[in-house]
């Protein structure tokens, strides 16, 4: 069963043609890592999946087999079913850690406060921050912020998690703790689409690696195959650059 599927996904920003027809499907429980040079459309692809960017007319996105029409369907309801984690965390600075996590379940789903808090504490435990519930985002390290952001997204109990270069803004020594949480999540069966430059993570955790360039998927396959015998020249060139950097 595919959680999400795209057919002929195009996206223009004015004259700029960023996505040039992406066809892919992500199965339940699958971890897909999207790699590619900057400007290749990875982030835009991810942002189209939850309609933070509205795809061009004619593009199709299916969630659990149901086509989503951004003109007709309530996109807020669609987004409730997908969690997203951003490069720059975007924690809510006026809310403490616990309230960052409970605010959406309480106000979007109407979960009672007590229940939302209990769930949030469980999630904090899961991301390794059980003692931080009263802390303010400004008091956390980047790695801690990102783990809270992951917990915040998980609190909505999403069917799929989207990760947009979530370790790119972190100090190198803080990357591992975030990747560990993501790895645990993958091991727990979460369906994930991960845009990242962390090739070690891709190699270890991905079920499938998708290589994008110039708005298209140019190659995809198991991490073993992509990393050891990439078929496309551009994939070889890209991997050569990032792996020997």
């Amino acid at each position, binding site marked *: 069963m595919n959680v999400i599927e795209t057919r002929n996904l195009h996206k223009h920003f004015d004259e700029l043609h960023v996505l040039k027809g992406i066809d892919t499907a992500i199965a339940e429980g699958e971890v897909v890592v999207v790699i590619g040079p900057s400007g290749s459309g990875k982030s835009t692809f991810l942002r189209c999946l939850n309609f933070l960017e509205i795809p061009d007319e004619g593009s199709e996105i299916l969630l659990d087999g149901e086509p989503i029409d951004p003109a007709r369907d309530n996109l807020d309801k669609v*987004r409730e079913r997908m969690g997203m984690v*951003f490069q720059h965390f975007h924690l809510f600075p*006026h809310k403490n850690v616990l309230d960052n996590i409970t605010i959406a379940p309480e106000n*979007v789903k109407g979960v009672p406060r007590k229940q939302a808090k209990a769930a949030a504490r469980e999630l904090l435990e899961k991301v390794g921050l059980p003692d931080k519930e009263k802390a*303010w985002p*400004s008091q956390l390290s980047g790695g801690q912020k990102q783990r809270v952001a992951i917990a915040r997204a998980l609190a909505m109990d999403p069917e799929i998690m989207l990760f947009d270069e979530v370790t790119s803004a972190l100090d190198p020594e803080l990357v591992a703790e975030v990747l560990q949480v993501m790895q645990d999540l993958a091991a727990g069966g979460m369906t994930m689409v991960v845009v990242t430059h962390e090739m070690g993570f891709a190699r270890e955790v991905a079920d499938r690696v998708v290589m994008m360039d110039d708005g298209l998927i140019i190659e995809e396959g198991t991490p073993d195959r992509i990393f050891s015998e990439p078929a496309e020249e551009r994939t070889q060139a890209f991997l050569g650059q990032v792996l020997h950097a």
Partner: protein
Amino acid sequence: MLESLWVVLDMHFHGFLRATGVTLQLTFVSLVLAVVIGLIFAFLKLSRNPVANLLSHAYIGIVRGTPLIVLLMFLYFGISSIVVLSSFWAGSFALAIHAGAYVAEIFRGAIQSIDHGQHEAARSLGMARRTSMRLIILPQAFRRAIPPLGNQFIIGLKDSSLVAFLGVSELYSSAMTAAAANFRPFETYLIAGLYYLVLVLIFTVLVNQLEIKLSPDRRTAT
């Protein structure tokens, strides 16, 4: 001179205090209205509706382009054939309409200054545009608006002295009357100035307190 200052102060202390009460009422009423007006027009200006936009631009442009005293006279004398407002209310409305334009710009700027990522994060959690505005953007924008808002309120407090020209017995009007009666304009206006100064200082402290209170994460702000 110091002695005459005491004499004048002694003479007018209570009268000025009563007048200060009127000044505070004018200020309070007009600023509450100004915040409401400002918030409405900030939203109109941020709206994607061209009519709302035009309305907001016109209001802010007209108010910023005309002196407050003209608006005061207009509301009290100018439209008296259509609506008769008491001098207090004409003054309050004029001050509110005037300050509202500046408050609108303060709110608009504060709302726009909030990182777009905040809105995106809220939307990605399934919040509707309205919910995101109410729970995520506005609380942060309000906090950011407090310093310029405090500044605008101080201007509003001092601008209320112009309502003297409608015959409201507020602080400045009382000073004018007193100076005309006691022939001691130096001492009288000096004292009136001190009254205003003390009000502004108290107000500044209150605004600072409010800012601290609304910034619980202030210790290590980023």
